[in-house]
Structures are given as C-alpha cells and as structure tokens.
C-alpha cells in the first residue's frame, strides 16, 4: 500500500541538495528508508532524513534525471510514499564517530540526533566536494556534536577525503561505534581503519531497488538483500563481499564497477 501525501516544506540544504518534508504517520527509525514516488516519474528508495513524529523528510541530491526533477517539486505537490522499510541504526553506543560523505549525512543526521537526545557524545567527520556542499553541518552542530570537515577542493577544513579526518580521529580518540554513509570506497576505508581498533562500524549502503520487499533481487549484494537485510550493516558483514566497494548492479542486474555507468 502507498499513501499519497503533499509536500509541506521544501528546504534547499546545499546548492545541489533539497529536503522535502511531508506528513506520514507510520513509525520509523533512523536508518530506514521509504519508496517515494514522484507521479509521472520514477519511484526511488530514499533514506529518511527526518524520522520522528508525523512529519517525515527525505533529502535528495541532484544526481540523475529524476533527482533533478524532484528538486523542482514545490510545497503542495503530491508524492506517493510506501514504507518505511529496512532496519535501523543501533543507537546504544555512547561515544560515536559519524562519518558522512556527500549526501550520506541524510541518513546519519537523524541517527545522530536521536543518539544525542539520549546523551550520547558525537564526533562528526563530514566530507564534500566543496564547503557549500557540506550537508547538515549546522544540524550536527546544533545537536552538540564536534564537527570536523574535509573538502575535495580545500575550500574548508582538511583538503582531501574525509577518510583522512576519520583515520586521525580513530587514532586519537576512543569510540564505541562508527556510523558511516557515503561512497562505498569511503566506507570501506573507514571500516578498515576502525577494525584493528575493535570499534564496530555500521554502514548504510545503497543499491538499485524495485520491490523493496525482498523479492525482486534488484538490491542483491552478495548473499544479502539491502532492502530487507539492511540498509544498515555491520562492516564485518560487508568487507568480505566481492562486490562491496567495487561493483553494484544496474537495473538489468548486470554487475557494474563503481565509477562507470
């Protein structure tokens, strides 16, 4: 079943990223996603960037044609929602390192917010192509997190990948858990840095999705189905997989290396 709702709020988060808020009652937790249908266009899996109460939200980066169209939606426009689907972040850790690359912060922010509200201490390593693209920086700061940034062009913070920041933090501070979302190669590096220090790492991964019900196999990643077994996985489950960080499947089910189309 799906519910047609009207967009109640539209926020331009960065030059390439838009948040849409809409009323949706179904209980949801940080990490879960919805299938959001843009009538006349595609239906996409989107992690909820706002999970609490009756006003949910998704945060969309302009990537393909659909996500660009979606950004043109206005308050009052209709979208179809089904879900929430998938699992949630385990929020029990007390000292958490959050590592977000690009639009990965969309799913990490509500997890961090919930954890912070129950007294967890959060350190956030945030990466983006340039300073203006750092997603939810202010939101993380507002929840009391220590935020460190890295930008590809050096326009702010560390010049280079956010993994450099994460590796340094892991070497100098103690954490009970790492939560990460972003490009798979980034998550892979973070997991490899945390592993030897015995800090459990949880990754939110993305795959092609169609049914979101664990049936069609579009989101198959090795032995798991991201839609029902994930999208949040302990890194030790992902690291041994041949496909993790290397390839995904296109809509036909063909394996495609990351970085190609």
């Amino acid at each position, binding site marked *: *079943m*799906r519910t*047609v709702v009207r967009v109640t709020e539209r926020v331009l988060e960065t030059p390439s990223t838009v948040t849409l808020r809409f009323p949706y009652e179904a209980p949801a937790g940080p990490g879960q996603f919805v*299938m959001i*249908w843009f*009538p*006349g266009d*595609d*239906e*996409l899996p989107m992690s909820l960037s706002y999970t609490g109460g009756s006003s949910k939200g998704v945060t969309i980066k302009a990537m393909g044609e659909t996500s660009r169209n979606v950004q043109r939606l206005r308050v009052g426009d*209709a979208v*179809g929602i*089904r879900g929430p689907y998938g699992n949630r972040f385990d929020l029990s850790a007390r000292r958490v390192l959050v590592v977000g690359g690009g639009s990965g912060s969309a799913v990490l922010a509500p997890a961090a917010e919930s954890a912070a509200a129950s007294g967890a201490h959060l350190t956030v390593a945030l990466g983006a192509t340039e300073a203006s693209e750092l997603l939810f920086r202010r939101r993380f700061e507002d929840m009391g997190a220590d935020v460190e940034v890295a930008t590809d062009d050096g326009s702010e913070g560390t010049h280079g990948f956010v993994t450099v920041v994460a590796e340094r933090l892991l070497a100098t501070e103690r954490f009970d858990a790492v939560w990460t979302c972003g490009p798979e190669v980034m998550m892979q590096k973070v997991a490899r840095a945390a592993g030897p220090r015995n800090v459990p790492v949880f990754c939110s991964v993305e795959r092609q999705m*169609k*049914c*979101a*019900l*664990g*049936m*069609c*196999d*579009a989101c*198959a990643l*090795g*032995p798991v*189905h991201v839609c*029902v077994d994930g999208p949040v996985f302990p890194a030790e489950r992902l690291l041994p997989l041949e496909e993790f960080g290397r390839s995904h*499947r*296109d*809509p*036909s*089910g*063909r*394996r495609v290396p990351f970085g190609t189309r």
Partner: protein
Amino acid sequence: MRADVAELAVEIGPLRLRNPFLLASGIWGESGESLAGAWDAGAGGVITKSIGSAPRPGYPNPTIESYSDWGLLNAMGLPNPGIEEYPREVAAARARGATVIGSVFGGDAEEFAELARRLAATGVVALELNLSCPHAEGYGTEVGSTPDDVAAIVRAVVREVRVPVIAKITPNTPDPAALAVAAEKAGAAAISAINTVRGLAIDATLHRPVLAHGLGGLSGPAIKPVGLACVWQIYSRVQVPVIGVGGISTSEDALEYLMAGARAVEVGTAVARDGIGVFGRLVSGLSERLDALGYRSAAAAVGAAHTAPS
C-alpha cells in the same frame, strides 16, 4: 528417522527434485548467490529470472503495488542481465549445489530456441519457457496466448536442447488447458501454470495508474483459486507432469495444488511476506500434513481430488 515419514522427492519427467517446492522465476533470480540462498533455505529447485537475448532494465518504478496480505501487482518488465552475462550467475548457484532450472523469454520461436540452447549449456537441469508474462510488449503472453504459437515455440526449443522443457502458460486466455495440450503435443516435458493474472492499480487521488507501465500481473493468495482451476483442468487433459503456481504461501496451499494435479509447485510472492525461510516451513509443513492424512509420498497425493470419494 521415523519409518512413516512421507517421501517428499518428486519426479518431473527425468528430473528428480528433493521436494516439490521450486523458487518461482523472477524471485531472487538475478544473482547466482541469491539462487543458492534459496536452495540453502530448502527449495527443491530454483528457477532463474527469465533471460533474454540482451540486458534489459525492465520498466521504471513503480514496478510493484502491494496489497497487504492478499496480493502483489507487478510490472517489472522482464529485467535481466542478458544471456551473455547470465551464465556466471548460474555457475555461482551450481557451485553451491543448487538444482537450477533456467527460464527464458523470446519474441519468436527462433529466439526462444537460441536462448534455450545457450542457457542449457550452463548446466541447468531443465528449461522453463516464459510464454506468459502478462505485461511485456512482444513477449510472454503476446507470443504464448494461442495453441499454435505455444506449439511452435516449444517445438523449436525441444529440437535444440536435451534437458526437459517446461512450458509456463498464461491464465489470461479463455482456455489455458488448450495451451497446455498444445505444449505437450509439441514435446514439452511438463507444464507450469499459472503466471500472474493481468491487473491494474489506479490511484484515485492522482487520477492515474500506479505502475509506470500501467498494466501489471497479480500474484499472491488472491490468485490461488485461479491457479487451482487451471491446474485442475490441465491435469485432466495432459499426461505430462503439471507444476502448480499461484498464491502458494502455506503447506496447505501446496497440498491443495497437489490434489488438483500438480506434481510440484512454484513459490514466489510468499517470499516477500515471509522471507526465504518460507521454504523450510513449507517443506516441514507438507511432510507433517501428508503424514497426518496417511500419504506415503507427495507423489501419492497428486490428483487426489479428481478421484475423491463421492
């Protein structure tokens, strides 16, 4: 082990299945590792996605409309990696010991035969012909809705391969059993029935069909009576084994299909509701039920409802 436990293994022509529960085509079949997962979960055999000549992305989303507990409407649009890429997935499933049945779809007899030849070369134990997808232009039902079309395709494939050929027929025609009869005459080793029932979902708020493709195919508990009726009719008109498909989510459903005349069954939509663990539960449930009814084997129950005491 108790001596009176019913034998679950069944034979589909020369093919022996460890139990009657097959993973239906289209479910968990894009990757070999998923096929192996379904086998490990207890399926008696696994059927691949329907494979075509070229990679095919399928239709855009929405491809699924879910009706809580009674059904699913889908128009996936036959997504598949194509015959060039797919053999590696079959190999991955076979490496884990799975009994793999290949499914193919083509636009005409020649294309079916070529695909069947190439998929048979991967070591699949049988081939199921998708003559029945209700929502793909130029394929499925569109090439499999008359006895002559079905016969021509089956004949062409049977000439090309040594493995048993299973014709999967559509319920979206006035006389599905006539298609089965034609397939048998053309050399099919078994008939599977049914594929999904053509359906449509409309969103009234938006004044439009929900699925991107518009028309789709209905599966799940709602279509069980339709599948049972087709199996019932086909069983009385052909000699070859029938494989029942449509709305099987409990062992009782499976037993009903056996009694209607099915020698094996395919399970698909139940995986969405109950997870892949459904296979283990179906196997143990059927075993218990056959024991309770005094059947010594699953095969002994096949067609039982046709000879019911009056």
